């Protein structure tokens, strides 16, 4: 018989306190965004990139594999969304499904070439493939619109059969993006704490040992890559709706690089929430700092370098350390000072 505490215990496996905080914060945004001098579309952008970063981090933070070309899959998702709309059927769900699956398919193909590698070889190959896809997207004008991009992508309504929500206004799109974000967060958190997620984290720490324990490391890395691309493509699909088009610029190495910066600064290497924190920091830098100076990205990059040198655990790592220290001081015992293990969250 399911008792109330039993149900709550099982629920805690799915939803955590930090998640509720994040949902509360992001859920309240449309109510105060204009008051602080910002605009709802910014919220859409932040959520889209949060999803992108979370997807990227499955590969980077969980599995320890550096992909420096992930923007390519984001772009592929955006194009897939547009192309489905134009050539198949103008349906939101179909478009998003296409964005996810097509990006995942390309990811699967690339992963076949690199799943037995790690480190610099892995990174090099992701750069090479990313440039290849960027090039193809720029040149294949008939399909992608070339340098001008695939324009006139409409925001189709979220149709649930009995009720349909138009997404044409930015606040409406924001709510949709928020719903997507919530679902992705819950699913990825579950993934991080699943047996599969544990194996990925083990592979990050010591790939060889995992193989010696009898696991098919190649397959796990392959799946990690494919999943990561799927989530990234999904984000790209939403982005295409937001922008009203799919543009080749997001597939550039610069963009791919920015995601890496965001995720590390936020603490993706040690925390599930790192990517979200990093995305928020990036947009703060872009919109607040950027209002004062053209050089904000330069500072962001320098901050990244300093983080790598002195605090690769990023913002999330700093936060955890701060909490441990204050808790220890309060309890009057010496601080243990160890990091959280793996992206299991705080």
């Amino acid at each position: 018989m399911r008792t109330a505490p039993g149900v709550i215990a099982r629920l805690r496996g799915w939803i955590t306190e930090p998640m509720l905080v994040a949902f509360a914060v992001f859920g309240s945004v449309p109510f105060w965004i204009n008051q602080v001098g910002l605009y709802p579309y910014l919220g859409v952008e932040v959520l889209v990139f949060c999803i992108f970063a979370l997807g990227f981090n499955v590969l980077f933070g969980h599995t320890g594999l550096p992909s420096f070309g992930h923007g390519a899959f984001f772009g592929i998702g955006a194009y897939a969304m547009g192309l489905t709309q134009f050539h198949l059927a103008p349906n939101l769900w179909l478009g998003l499904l296409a964005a996810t699956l097509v990006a995942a398919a390309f990811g699967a193909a690339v992963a076949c070439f690199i799943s037995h590698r790690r480190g610099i070889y892995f990174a090099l190959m992701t750069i090479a493939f990313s440039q290849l896809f960027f090039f193809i997207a720029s040149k294949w004008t008939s399909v992608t619109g070339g340098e001008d991009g695939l324009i006139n992508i409409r925001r189709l309504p979220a149709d649930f059969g009995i009720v349909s929500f138009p997404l044409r206004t930015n606040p409406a799109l924001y709510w949709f993006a928020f719903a997507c974000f919530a679902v992705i967060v819950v699913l990825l958190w579950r993934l991080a704490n699943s047996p599969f997620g544990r194996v990925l984290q083990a592979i990050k720490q010591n790939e060889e040992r995992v193989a010696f324990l009898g696991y098919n490391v190649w397959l796990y890395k392959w799946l990690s890559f494919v999943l990561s691309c799927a989530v990234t493509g999904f984000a790209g699909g939403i982005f295409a709706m937001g922008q009203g088009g799919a543009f080749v610029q997001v597939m550039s190495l610069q963009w791919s690089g920015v995601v890496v910066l965001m995720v590390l600064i936020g603490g993706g290497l040690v925390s599930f929430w790192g990517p979200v924190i990093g995305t928020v920091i990036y947009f703060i830098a872009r919109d607040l700092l950027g209002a004062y100076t053209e050089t904000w990205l330069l500072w962001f990059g320098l901050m990244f370098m300093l983080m790598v040198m002195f605090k690769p655990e990023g913002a999330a790592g700093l936060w955890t350390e701060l909490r441990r220290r204050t808790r220890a001081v309060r309890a009057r015992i010496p601080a243990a000072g160890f990091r959280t293990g793996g992206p299991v969250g705080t």
Partner: protein
Amino acid sequence: MALLEAHRLHKRFGDRVVLETIDLAFEEGRLSGIIGPNGAGKTTCFHVLTGRYRPDGGRIMLDGRDITGLTPRAIARMGISRSFQLMNLFDDFSALENVALAVPERRRQGFHMLRDARQDSSVADKAAAVLARVGLAGKERELARNLSYGDRRALEICMALAAEPRILFLDEPTSGLGTEATARLADLVRRLKQEVTLVIIEHNMRFLFDLADTVAVIQWGQVIARGTPETLRADKWVKASNFGMLA
């Protein structure tokens, strides 16, 4: 026929021949030891037997099946498990999570993406049980990186053990341990002898000769002597080699 047999193993790196012809047999239920000076090839032999290196010649048979050249993963799945001298732990995981990863049941569920690993009591119980066997009960929640050296060594062996192997290879298990820890390790190994076939590489001859049923001496890439500890103590080659103190 022995549980695991190696016939005429040959291994070279570039022009350097590390293993000339190695013939070994490990009987089920016994503790077999391998000793030899540094550079003799015993570590390479170990790596070849556990699948880390592919031999250039010769065959390895497990229960009559040829397993030569199989990947470490395949060999692990057949029930050959090993510990590492340079410890290969998952430092960011707790002791329990380290061991849980080795439990075959966890491996079978490896692709489950939506199940909660933390609530998996079956795997956790098994892991906790193995931890208790090696004397790490109570330290399940400690992060591996925070354990003492001796505990890390024990955890290392624990992981190999948790895989429920048919044959367990231990690579220099006493390395870096003090006398007391070595004695506790000897106790553990004695208990394990009842349950699993063991193969141990060691430098510490006293430790090994106390526990082993049979020992092979590897020097210059060959087995120069083999037998029970008693017969070896009398062997002229072993005496001439003069490595280590015999109790």
